[in-house]
């Protein structure tokens, strides 16, 4: 249970803007994601949640610098080859419409990832792509492969994005507010899909959200961030029951009936 798939300590990220000023985005952040669990990361916009995920994916902006204390992945110290080797981590982004290249078909996106991560091409790759779409419960997968991103509905697009993430064969899935751009009913479906994948695939998930209801419903542990610093971390129920940091208390107060509301 207490096995950590990913453990990061002392992560610092700063960005130098064009006028030469340096702004620290993340300050001494430590995160651990339990194997097979869902970690919820909450905080207001600008608190550094997204930057945390981006630094794990190594897709920080060019003008950013990062420094680590320690990184362990799957029980191994990966600090040395973190920049070089491709760890089994993938990420789902906030807006599925802008996440896809608008001029490439869904199939093109998926087969490219299959070729890169599984070394499979042609017909076999097509088969894998169909499987992945089936896994995320997209109807008529073969037809969807031939469609452009704009031809799908928002929920279908996000499912396709999750399918693309699964084709990396990840152990850890990062999700950056994956339902913010979607309708409320679709949101619930996508979250249910994530929960199902965790169950079936044994995926570990790090879910960034600003919705405490989602955290209460879905996550095992949670992390509260403010101004680039982790202010609170713990089991979801413990944090909800007795928040330690005043900011967490503030967040909980601003969300009425969190525990009840989410389960309805």
């Amino acid at each position, binding site marked *: 249970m207490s096995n950590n798939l990913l453990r990061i300590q002392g992560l610092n990220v700063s960005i130098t803007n064009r006028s030469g000023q340096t702004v620290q985005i993340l300050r001494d952040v430590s995160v651990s994601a339990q194997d097979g669990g869902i970690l919820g990361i909450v905080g207001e916009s600008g608190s550094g949640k997204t930057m945390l995920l981006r630094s794990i994916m190594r897709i920080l902006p060019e003008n950013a610098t990062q420094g680590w204390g320690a990184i362990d992945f799957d029980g191994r110290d990966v600090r040395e080859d973190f920049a070089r080797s491709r760890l089994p981590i993938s990420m789902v982004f906030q807006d599925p419409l802008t996440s896809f*290249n608008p*001029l490439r078909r869904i199939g093109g996106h998926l087969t490219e990832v299959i070729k*890169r991560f599984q070394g499979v091409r042609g017909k076999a790759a097509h088969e894998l792509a169909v499987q992945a779409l089936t896994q995320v419960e997209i109807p008529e997968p073969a037809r969807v492969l031939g469609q452009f991103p704009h031809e799908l509905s928002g929920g279908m697009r996000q499912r396709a994005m999750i399918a693309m993430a699964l084709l990396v064969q990840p152990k850890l899935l990062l999700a950056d507010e994956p339902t913010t751009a979607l309708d409320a009913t679709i949101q619930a479906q996508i979250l249910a899909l994530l929960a199902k994948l965790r169950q079936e695939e044994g995926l570990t998930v790090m879910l960034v959200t600003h919705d405490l209801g989602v955290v209460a419903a879905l996550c095992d542990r949670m992390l509260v961030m403010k101004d680039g610093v982790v202010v609170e971390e713990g089991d979801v129920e413990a944090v909800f029951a007795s928040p330690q940091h005043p900011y967490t208390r503030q967040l909980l107060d601003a969300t009425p009936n969190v525990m009840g509301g989410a389960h309805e």
Partner: protein
Amino acid sequence: MARFILRRLAQLVPMLLLLSFVVFTLIHFAPFDVINAITTPSMSEETKQMMREKFGLDQPFWVQYWLWLSNLLQGDLGYSLVSRYPIADELATRLLNTFVLIFPAYLTAFILAIALGLIAGSRPGKRVDRFVDGVCSVAIATPTFWFALLVIAFFGFTLRWFPILGMHSVGKDGDPLDFLAHLAMPFLVLVIALFPELTRYVRAATITQYGQEYVLVQRAYGASERTILTRHVSRNILLPIITQLGLALPLLVTGAIITENIFSWPGIGQYILQASLSLDYPVILSILLLSATLVILGNLLADVLYVAADPRIRIGKRSR
């Protein structure tokens, strides 16, 4: 698609009619008498009056406009006041001459611009980008005619590599080598005049594309910089670039006014300037009409190309 084009063409009709009306009004009220283009001073007043009636020049404004418009639609643009030749014939010859000059120049500039713009835009702020940007800044600030004079002084007078005037040497009308030698300097001048704006455009489009989220996503999914450029960014840049091709259509007529005049290239640009210096109103206004028509058609072409190239726009089908 065909219906889209037809609908857009139908929308053009009022614009073109308005344009032709403005041009005709200008002709009508310009300080000259059209009859002088087809008569000689030795003709008697009676003959002139007969010609006037024959061509409907004694009719009221609206009737004349109608006559002019129907002639126009049959390809009859009237006569030059100076040479007394039919304008349409002269325009046709000169259009071809301008085309053989500016088409290769625009194509070269276009390809150069795509290459430079992609290189610079994919590495914004880096040395190569600053270099390309610097070259463009200098080229944009350089007046075309001045650059042409420098080219003539250097390649024409000092090195004596290329002939300075015209399209052909006397008596060598069909000689392709002679033609190419004449083409060299105006071609160079035009490429330098055309490429910087296009390069800036491609560079800006490239930077915009690199700022898109899908590039970030591709990076997260392990795509190499090369894959991102060739498979993803370049496709998206092609779209705005293609529309530039349509907008370039009027350049085929009026893109080389200065260059043609410096090198005495017998094209449209030289025609309109000669006409304007000798106050040959019908010629000037015909070219005005022609070039404005091309702008309007060019915009249509740009729209059509855009629609054809972008899968997000589907005409006729309902998008889901």
